């Protein structure tokens, strides 16, 4: 087997809750990568996960020194993202960070610079935009089904985690809050669909200076709030599209994940960008009824790891990765700009720019390298045919509407 077709060796750092779905997916979905070992600051946690998935438990040092590991998937807490990334890159490994890429812009920039300097790859989550749901939205946009995008309504609204999460302190501190913790999915999805942001104008506050835990062993404990928990921002994209982004842990709402893209010829209600699947609804100009658009593209289940898989593919074929650190950095830049705008009471220009990542290939999501044969993604010609027939129907609807009205 040539080096070019050898599976990319993966080391997992961080054996917490999220590692389960990553390990499940990375060890079963993708033949072009092979998980070698798992490490954690708590050795018992690493050992438990290692046993569960038939892997080797390692210390972080052992993992970073392991010759077969080429890509480190960093599932530590956000505050540790940058440090583990630096150590991995220094050790000659590429890095894929759970979101966010880093907490501070400066760390994010250094991760990208170090990777470039070493000829390695750096990428980050979220990768939900590679799922079938948001890829279907991408396809609708690129096909021009709603014409040029005009405006965006993005709003995540809930009442925080203290009534269900056993240990919610983290969510109410800098580096988390509704924007960094959940808004990151919205900002990433919007960038991947509409291109980079150019300006934000925000207001924010912590409506409640402390929260009370109402579940689990810490029931009744107070959680100090040290970051804004209700954030509203006007947003502008380089394309001229404007919109609003709301991120709140302070409100009671049943419509908790809103992402709507308005276009010249219609409107798309996108799925929850924290998920990989649908539903997607389409309203065409002058119509009064929303059509549900079936999502017949792959990766609609919880496919966390898809981004790491794309990065591994890029490591082998040398092409760009869809989850490149430039995207993660832009998202980090936008989130900081929003908080700065609110704090300073002024509009803030977003300095960084990034290209929209390439859409997933409907039939060969990760197949541009010589690993095609080994891919086990559920992508078939049948799915592409189904997708094509939906586009035809939608285009027909649009054509009928426009010929009737123009």
């Amino acid at each position, binding site marked *: 087997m040539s080096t070019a077709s050898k599976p990319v060796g993966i080391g997992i750092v961080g054996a917490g809750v999220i590692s389960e779905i990553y390990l499940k997916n990375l060890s079963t979905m993708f033949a072009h990568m092979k998980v070698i070992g798992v490490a954690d600051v708590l050795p018992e946690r690493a050992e438990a996960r290692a046993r569960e998935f038939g892997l080797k438990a390692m210390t972080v040092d052992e993992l970073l020194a392991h010759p077969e590991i080429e890509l480190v998937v960093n599932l530590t807490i956000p505050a540790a993202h940058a440090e583990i990334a630096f150590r991995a890159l220094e050790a000659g490994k590429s890095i894929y960070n759970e979101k966010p890429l880093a907490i501070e812009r400066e760390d994010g920039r250094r991760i990208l610079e170090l990777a470039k300097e070493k000829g390695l790859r750096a990428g980050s989550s979220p990768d939900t935009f590679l799922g079938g749901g948001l890829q279907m939205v991408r396809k609708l946009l690129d096909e021009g089904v709603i014409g040029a995008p005009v*405006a965006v309504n993005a709003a995540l609204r809930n009442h925080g985690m203290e009534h269900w999460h056993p240990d919610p302190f983290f969510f109410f501190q800098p580096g988390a809050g509704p924007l960094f913790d959940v808004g990151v999915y919205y900002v990433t999805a919007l960038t991947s669909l509409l291109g980079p942001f150019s300006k934000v104008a925000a207001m924010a506050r912590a409506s409640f200076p402390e929260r009370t835990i109402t579940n689990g062993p810490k029931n009744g404990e107070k959680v100090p709030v040290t970051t804004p928990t209700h954030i509203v921002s006007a947003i502008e994209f380089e394309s001229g599209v404007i919109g609003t982004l709301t991120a709140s842990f302070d409100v009671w709402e049943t419509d908790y994940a809103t992402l709507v893209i308005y276009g010249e010829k219609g409107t798309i209600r996108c799925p929850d960008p924290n998920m990989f699947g649908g539903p997607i609804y389409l309203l*065409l100009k002058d119509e009064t009824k929303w059509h549900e658009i079936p999502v017949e593209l792959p990766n609609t289940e919880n496919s966390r790891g898809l981004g790491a898989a794309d990065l591994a593919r890029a490591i082998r074929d040398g092409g760009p990765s869809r989850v490149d650190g430039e995207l993660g950095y832009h998202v980090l830049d936008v989130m900081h700009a929003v908080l700065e705008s609110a704090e300073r009471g002024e509009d803030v220009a977003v300095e960084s720019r990034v290209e929209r990542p390439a859409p997933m290939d409907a039939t060969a999501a990760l197949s541009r390298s010589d690993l095609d044969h080994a891919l086990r993604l559920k992508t078939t010609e049948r799915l592409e045919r189904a997708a094509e027939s939906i586009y035809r129907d939608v285009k027909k609807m649009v054509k009928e509407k426009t010929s009737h009205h123009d």
Partner: protein
Amino acid sequence: MTTRPTGIGVIGAGFISGIYLTNLTTRWEHVRVVGIADLVPERAQARAAEFGIAALTIAELLAHPGIDIVLNLTIPAAHADVCEQVIAAGKSVYTEKPLALSRDQGRHVLDAAHERGLQVGCAPDTFLGAGLQTVRRLLDEGIVGEPVAFRARMTTHGHESWHPDPAFYYQPGAGPMLDMGPYYITAIVALLGPVRRVSAMARATWPQRTITSQPKYGELIEVNTPSHIEANLELESGVPGTLMTSFDLWDTEHCSFVIYGSEGSIRLPDPNTFGGPIRVLKAGESTWADVPLDHGYATNSRGIGIADMAKSMQVGEPIRASGALGLHALDVMLATLDSAEQGRHIAIASTVERPASLGPVSPEDVAPTHTMTYRGETLG
């Protein structure tokens, strides 16, 4: 105490005068419409005949000793001038929204009235309807706790597909913010208090629009004001919110208006209407419950603002749909456009007291009637 009914004179006999006259001539005994004037005498005569009132010239109306308040239903560009003429003639004035096209004009009207001891009232008065007054009660009773945030969205695709002469909607002084913003901002201020700061972005998606209604089908409209505005509003209480007004979007939900509180949320009715529906989500629950309206004036009650003004002047209390409220709403609307154009957050210079709630209104007031119970006092 017996007070003679307040005499009202109407300037402007256009479309909107119909509902005002219907209500003012039938629903309240403490006001009496004396006459109507218009630049086009035939229009005034037609309305006068329809409602059994006098057709007057503007000069006659301004000189009429039986008229205490002039109802100004002229076009927006004439509002401030007409208000000043009325005040110069020694009468109080109630004007359709907006109070003026500029802050200076608006302030000038209020100052002139103040100097002469006269009153200025300003539409909209939908916040005195059953829907928003019921919301006011829910807030005052703390049904959803302390206000935390609000979100208001007015989503349309403009008016060129139905309005016979829609060009004015896309000119400065209109656009979705100045046309519809008054309803939303007045409701927000009436319910949650004044606005302290705004930041906004705006665009005109199409530089030209095509009329698809009759009789001007196919004509082009030059768009000279933003037709899509995304604004953040911070209230003096610290409560933040968003207000989006658009003529550029395709959507089926044309009004979305929510007040979030510490103990629940209220979905408000369209603030361009007097009725419901109102829905409440209590903390921790997953379904919204309908709340019945418990105030009067659920139907189109345009005119309640001037009726309240007349009553307040009779009893010497502050008027609710006041010129100060109208000036503040104008200030906030213009600030959103300035903010978008200048790319900066803008502090709002004007402020206003939250108008008093209308208080409980007796059930018979829900239907048009000649008897009115008002703040516990039976009139007529």
